[in-house]
């Protein structure tokens, strides 16, 4: 249950990839930007995939540009680097960024680098275990703010922030401020209406909804003067040069066709499975709480448990050995687990960063499996010494 990390290839995607490779077996030419006749077929595939995205997102070419990248990490880096590409030249460009303290590392790391180069970064904490406060954000943005970057739904807690509303209000007051949102989790778990609010950069990661990793989608406001991060070629209308990742694009295209069904399953079925999962756990273990559990706006598949006093490093491994995948923050290049940083803004003790466990269900998680999952989870939790509610009440001696 680690869908938020990566969904895994959908069978429809595997089929389409196999089909694609078969079709190209006789003429294995995969450069969509070639001027040659052979380039036509791959070219058509890219164009079709892009049209499909426009349709599914309800957007028009004259207002938005959609282009393919190597992934959301690149997309996020682009959104942050582009506005500050001229940092070293003396100019009167505003140098302030407003963001949150709960961004993904592909936003947080570039932010840190900008900070080191003299950009002022204001990080807003979400309200205690809840969404970002619209007022807090509005209070922080002013004429000097060059960029507002907000994660739409947090990948660890699942908490969804009111990005559309915030962007609308900021755009009204400060039209020069660029608006970026990391929509990676939101787009892959919930139905969104991208027409309903203004934005300048929006990042999507297809492997979160069943496509291949190694491909990303960036949506950029066509009516602003925004430009490319990478240079050196004419692909993607120069938005993102480099020979296109055809397999990634094919997989994105077929995954998009299945996405509406997946979103429906999350909303109508998984949400309730997740709720039952949480209830069963909190009933049995009074010390375990759900981070953001009372928040009304949460991704339907995500559940972050806080298990005070238990370093979940061992638990993740123990659960893995029992066949249950979950996570707790990112991994280091050695493979060692680091803790979670999103709790920093909330009033949890510092130790909490290493005492959380995130479960994120796939859309096809069968309800019947919940019982087995809970059994194995309880086995590991008991072994870790988490006191059950029954034990706790048993230690209360009769007076």
């Amino acid at each position, binding site marked *: 249950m680690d869908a938020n990390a990566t969904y895994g290839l959908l069978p429809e995607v595997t089929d389409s990839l196999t089909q694609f490779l078969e079709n190209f077996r006789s003429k294995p030419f995969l450069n969509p930007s070639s001027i040659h006749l052979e380039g036509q077929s791959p070219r058509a595939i890219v164009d079709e995939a892009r049209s499909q995205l426009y349709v599914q997102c309800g957007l028009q070419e004259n207002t938005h540009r959609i282009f393919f990248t190597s992934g959301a990490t690149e997309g996020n880096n682009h959104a942050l680097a582009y506005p500050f590409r001229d940092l070293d030249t003396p100019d009167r460009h505003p140098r302030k960024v407003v963001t949150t303290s709960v961004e993904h590392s592909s936003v947080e790391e570039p932010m840190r680098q900008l900070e080191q180069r003299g950009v002022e970064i204001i990080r807003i904490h979400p309200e205690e275990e809840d969404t970002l406060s619209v007022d807090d954000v509005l209070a922080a943005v002013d004429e000097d703010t060059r960029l507002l970057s907000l994660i739409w739904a947090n990948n660890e807690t699942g908490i969804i922030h009111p990005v559309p509303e915030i962007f609308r209000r900021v755009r009204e007051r400060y039209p020069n401020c660029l608006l970026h949102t990391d929509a990676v989790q939101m787009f892959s778990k919930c139905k969104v209406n991208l027409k309903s609010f203004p934005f300048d950069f929006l990042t999507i990661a297809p492997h979160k909804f069943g496509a291949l990793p190694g491909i990303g989608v960036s949506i950029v406001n066509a009516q602003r003067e925004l430009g490319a991060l990478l240079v050196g070629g004419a692909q993607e209308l120069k938005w993102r040069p480099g020979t296109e990742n055809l397999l990634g694009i094919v997989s994105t295209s077929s995954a998009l066709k299945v996405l509406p069904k997946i979103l429906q399953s999350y909303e109508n079925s998984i949400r309730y499975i997740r709720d039952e999962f949480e209830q069963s756990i909190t009933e049995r273990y009074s010390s375990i709480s759900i981070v953001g559990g009372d928040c009304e706006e949460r991704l339907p598949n995500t559940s972050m448990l806080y298990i005070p006093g238990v370093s979940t490093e061992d638990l993740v*491994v*123990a659960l893995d050995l029992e066949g249950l995948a979950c996570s707790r923050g990112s991994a280091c290049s*050695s*493979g*060692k687990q680091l803790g979670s940083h999103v709790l920093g803004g909330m009033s949890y003790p510092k130790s909490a960063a290493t005492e959380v466990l995130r479960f994120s269900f796939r859309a096809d998680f069968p309800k019947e499996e919940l019982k087995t999952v809970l059994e194995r989870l309880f086995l590991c939790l008991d*072994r870790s010494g988490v006191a059950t509610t029954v034990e706790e009440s048993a230690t209360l001696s009769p007076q």
Partner: protein
Amino acid sequence: MENTVLEGKVVVAMSGGVDSSVAALILAEQGLDIVGVSMQVWDYRNHGGCSSKATCCAPSDFADARSVADKLGIPYYVFDFEEKFHEKVISKFLSTYQRGETPNPCVDCNNEVKFRELRGRALSLGCTSVATGHYVSVKHDSDGYHVYRGSDDRKDQSYFLYGLLQEELAQTLFPLGELTKSEVRQIARDAGIKTADKPESQDICFVSGPLGDFVGKRLGSDKKPGVFVNRSGAVIGKHDGIHQFTIGQRKGLGISGHEAPLYVVDIDHESGEVLIGPREELEVPGFSVGALNWIHPTYAAHGGPVNEIDVIAQVRHKHKGVRARLRMDGDVAKVTFIDEWTSPAPGQAGVFYDLQNKELLGGGRILPGCTNRASLNILPEEARW
């Protein structure tokens, strides 16, 4: 190795080196259900970045361990042991130098980190035993568990394992005990394990660069500079920190102009005086050992030998061991050399073997007071050991 069939899973400590890789391979081939685990005791991001060249825990070591685990088809995880390692090994390492003694971090790491902490984690994973690639053998009889030097004299690591308890030995496997290093490398080559010819990690695993710098930097203003003196009390030189010296050290003293080679005979951590003398002043008739652990089942049961016994005493890792007489005095073992004297360094491990120099009986920490101190003007026969 005695083939005990174990129930339950075994955690194999994997460093990415050829020894632990082959240990895992042997157990996997025996059909045991194993899980490979690396203990990250040191984080390079805090000490020079991923390209830092220390001898272990570099990201490439974990990558090696991971690829071996993948080849064997076993699960593999990396655990964060930094805090524990700092608490039990590095802090103690530094404070030992401050006391003018010579630390043995490998002993502390084995006792506290590898065998206790790792075992604790193994249990929480539902694993009942731990295995390592140490060159040491364990045999079991009706009295209990016996530990023997590894078959390869040059690789034997029993010296560092004197701290193991009987209950721990019951749940630990050492697949390499009866193999030599070259046999181990050959097994790795035959199995196509890529670390077959990987060079060994030398010296202290967490120190890259000169040891004196490592310790000096961390002690900061707690360093103890002072003077070199000879037996008569004459000052023959200066130094900027006693942490750079160990008993028996000959090199790096910066003292010249003497005919015979000179050694560090004693270190006084209060005054900062380092006593220098010729070889004859270095060797002492005996020493005391505290913080003992007895492995031999009979001694383990009684807190040590009841009567005086003759043993082979080893006072350094590369020391072949000398005959000595041992008697218990309360919690302390008083050891007198029989034929040959040597120069034990306080803080090091004093480890005892049977007279065939094969079976590890027990060991402990060499206590201060076994060196010849100039200020007390004591002749060797009266050394207060």
